[in-house]
């Protein structure tokens, strides 16, 4: 009993010291990230919608221009609308998954939830 009791406070001490050290390493930005009032679900919803719409709009625009240029009236536009929708979903996927792996093209999670 008496032999077992010393390690426990030791471990707890180590734990708290580790936590403190980690907090120090993370620095000011990480602390600012915990600034919860700045995040809002409405803001995130708005961001998701904007990402979707803009990707779709870009796809539509590219398809339109290519169609005017090549004279293949509706077909390329239809193709690029589908591709634009896929790109929008990719953007949103990266936005949602940004807390996990953060491959660049979309946005990493640092600003997630700000309008």
């Amino acid at each position: 009993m008496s032999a077992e009791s010393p390690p426990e406070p030791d471990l707890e001490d180590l734990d708290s010291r580790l936590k403190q050290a980690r907090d120090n390493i993370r620095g000011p930005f990480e602390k600012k990230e915990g600034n919860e009032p700045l995040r809002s679900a409405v803001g995130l919803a708005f961001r998701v919608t904007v990402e979707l719409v803009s990707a779709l709009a870009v796809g539509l625009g590219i398809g339109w221009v290519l169609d005017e240029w090549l004279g293949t009236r509706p077909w390329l536009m239809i193709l690029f609308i589908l591709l634009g929708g896929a790109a929008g979903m990719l953007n949103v996927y990266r936005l949602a998954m940004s807390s996990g792996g953060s491959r660049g093209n979309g946005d990493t999670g640092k600003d997630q939830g700000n309008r």
Partner: protein
Amino acid sequence: METEAAKMLGAGLAAIGVIGAGIGIGTIFASFIQAVGRNPAAAGAVTQMTWIGFALVEAIALYALVIAFMILFL
């Protein structure tokens, strides 16, 4: 004149597709609220999946909208 009327009718009909997306978004967020209510600890993981599902549904609504606009203005 007749084609104008037909265009507007067609655009209106194309926009009906948004109904499905409305039902879908309602279902997604209802399930989201239920899930978080039952297990608040899982909120983070559930939120991610919710937004992906939201994006999928919203994209379909946008397709309908794009078709409506194309009929109207092209």
